[in-house]
């Protein structure tokens, strides 16, 4: 079936460096792509979303890029901080359905 997947299960970066988390998706009908952050022992938290008719969207220290040609989504975190250590999920939403399909998650570890 349709799925959302991530290239790397773990990512370690030095504090202050930029982080890039990648995601591959397969459902061409998805109209929203979303990134969530889940800190240890907590529920996922919305970070940023991008509509399928866009290729880039920026938030505070985060940028999401969407490449529909290769069905690829990425989350860039600028000047990564210790508080950014978490599991990051990409998710997609198709049509009028309110349900999200989540990818398998990437564990981001920020090294001092």
């Amino acid at each position, binding site marked *: 079936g349709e799925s959302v997947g991530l290239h790397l299960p773990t990512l370690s970066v030095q504090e202050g460096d930029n982080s890039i988390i990648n995601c591959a998706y397969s459902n061409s009908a998805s109209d*929203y792509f*979303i990134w969530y952050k*889940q800190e240890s022992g*907590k529920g996922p938290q919305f970070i940023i979303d991008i509509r399928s008719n866009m290729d880039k969207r920026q938030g505070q220290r985060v940028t999401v890029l969407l490449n529909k040609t290769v069905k690829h989504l990425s989350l860039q975190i600028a000047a990564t901080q210790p508080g950014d250590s978490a599991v990051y999920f990409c998710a997609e939403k198709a049509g009028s*359905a*309110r349900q999200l399909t989540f990818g398998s*998650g990437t564990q981001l570890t920020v090294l001092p």
Partner: protein
Amino acid sequence: DTAVSQTPKYLVTQMGNDKSIKCEQNLGHDTMYWYKQDSKKFLKIMFSYNNKELIINETVPNRFSPKSPDKAHLNLHINSLELGDSAVYFCASSGRAGVEQFFGPGTRLTVL
């Protein structure tokens, strides 16, 4: 004030028992969800519900049933618990678009 709350946070029970997890949101949202997160952090939608319709993921056993006494509450009832039901269960809520979902802190269910 907590936006989405769940009780209990931890639930340990024997196989074959029936248990419920409660969820409340004070965000005024019209849609609520239940997700299951397994030991590999994979997050999967179980149900989405608003006052008009219940959407059930076809892979969810009918031992699981959502019950909504009112718009702010969506409880999860589980009959005849099995070992494979052990997981963390998250409640969430959202507005109509369903893109930005607000998650509760999770309930860790352990079936012995």
